[in-house]
């Protein structure tokens, strides 16, 4: 399932329209940065088996997030690097090396049909992205802004450019997801609260862009109180009536009525987004100030990367 996404559609949740956007927003931003775009530009979110792309004009592309073993005309190209590709090149993805979602950015951005100020595909509303739907064979996607890159390639079919970004989510502690306690955390019994940290949770097959259902020993609450619906966010961990947990992801509903046990911190959303059914992880609580600090650091890192990347690209384009 491949769709066009950006960083999400904000300002419409009061109408029940969820923000959507890339599951792994960090990787989507890095892909744009590597090719000299603004981080808010639309990208293609790819799930394996992913679409193949035929380039009708020379392009500067970058692939980030999951490693699906990408090739240009059969030759391997690295992730997290900008790559110049010639006219009539074919980009293909062959196998899952790691991760579960890859992002494809092209210099100049993708021509999309924005809906409510966002290019993100909203499948339920059948709006945004490319015709409001999943990409299909023979779809043609325009470049939003054409750039003349012909002279850079000379006779080569492609060229990997000499700057890159780090793949943060592939680093250590992959199995740990940090969260803030949710408002109904205290509804859990003492033993359930203890278990929340001691257990590892398995992501079940019943997991998609809306949310991940987790498998573990069922949890117990000590209250008969029922919750009325209230807003939920990306990363909210809800307790379902059967005692199991769900973590809400990019296409989550705007509101929900299940107890909120925890909220995964923003910098760990990408890590979660790159997990797949069968993967396991543990929860750990952190505090607001740590969550904020980590997010600020991540944003500063992206800014630095963006400045460096822009500088190098300008040098290249100026010859």
């Amino acid at each position, binding site marked *: 399932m491949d769709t066009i996404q950006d960083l999400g559609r904000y300002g419409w949740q009061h*109408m029940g329209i969820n923000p959507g956007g890339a599951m792994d927003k960090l990787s989507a931003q890095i892909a744009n940065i590597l090719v000299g775009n603004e981080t808010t530009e639309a990208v293609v979110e790819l799930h394996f088996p992913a679409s193949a792309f035929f380039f009708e004009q020379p392009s500067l592309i970058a692939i980030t997030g999951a490693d699906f073993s990408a090739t240009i005309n059969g030759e391997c190209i690295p992730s997290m690097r900008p790559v110049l590709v010639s006219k009539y090149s074919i980009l293909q993805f062959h196998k899952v090396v790691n991760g579960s979602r890859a992002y494809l950015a092209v210099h100049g951005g993708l021509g999309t049909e924005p809906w409510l100020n966002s290019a993100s595909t909203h499948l339920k*509303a059948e709006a945004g992205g490319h015709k409001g739907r999943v990409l299909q064979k023979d779809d043609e996607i325009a470049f939003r802004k054409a750039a003349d890159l012909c002279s850079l390639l000379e006779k080569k079919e492609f060229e990997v450019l000499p700057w890159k970004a780090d793949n943060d989510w592939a680093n250590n502690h992959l199995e740990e997801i940090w969260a803030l306690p949710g408002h109904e955390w205290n509804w859990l019994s003492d033993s359930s609260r203890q278990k929340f940290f001691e257990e590892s949770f398995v992501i079940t097959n019943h997991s998609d862009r809306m949310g991940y259902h987790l498998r573990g020993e069922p949890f117990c609450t000590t209250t008969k109180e029922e919750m009325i619906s209230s807003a939920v966010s990306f990363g909210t961990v809800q307790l379902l009536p059967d005692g199991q947990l769900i973590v809400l992801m990019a296409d989550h509903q705007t509101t929900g009525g299940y107890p909120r046990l925890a909220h995964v911190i923003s910098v760990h959303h990408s890590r979660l987004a790159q997990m797949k059914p069968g993967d396991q992880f543990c929860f750990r609580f952190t505090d607001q100030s740590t969550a904020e600090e980590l997010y600020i650091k991540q944003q500063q890192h992206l800014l630095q990367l963006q400045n460096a990347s822009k500088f190098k690209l300008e040098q290249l384009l100026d010859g």
Partner: protein
Amino acid sequence: MPGSPKHRIFPISDSALTIDFGNVIDESINQQVLDLFRQLQQYPVTGMTEAVPAYSSLTIYYDLFQLRKSIPAGTTVYDWMRVQLQEKLEQSSLANNGETRLITIPVCYELEFAPDIEALARQKNIAVDEVIAIHSSGLYRVYMLGFLPGFCYLGEVDERIVVPRKSQPQPVAAGSVGIAGRQTGIYPMASPGGWQIIGRTPLKLFEAQKEQPALLMAGDTVRFTSITKNEFENY
């Protein structure tokens, strides 16, 4: 204390907080939520990206990175935001500053469009016609939108036709009108859903390409009127 109803503020992510006025479905509390929502739409707090009203709570999403650059060090962005909203709440006049719209929704309650109406009537020990009469005689408040684009939660349903939601969601057609507990609602689009379906409206509750895509807004008053299958088809 006028202007400052009893409330709690808590985070629902590292960049969103909820102001909760109590875990209840209550018209005057919902009105307070909507008044604050409208006030914030007009005069947003610095750094706010959006506000989401629910039955008895308002959630504020904010831009952590932008705010961090502009607020004093030594406080978390969350704490700063909480104080800003606290002040807003204290200034907030509770005057109802929006006119209530009354919107009539035509509904065809015929069995073909109402897969659960017979079971509901049996369970409540009344005739199907009575279910229709009761449902279409009430005035309902739109408490909130959520679940799907344009899906509204209306209340409150007459005790005589209150039934719990289904234990397993089933496919529901667009326009279907359902009951779940004291709530009634309309599915704007086809979707799996757990509400007991008692009819269908020919109206489009959600049109993506309109400037205001959702037909109903929180705070509206809704009345249902029964139409025949023929009227439905020629609507």
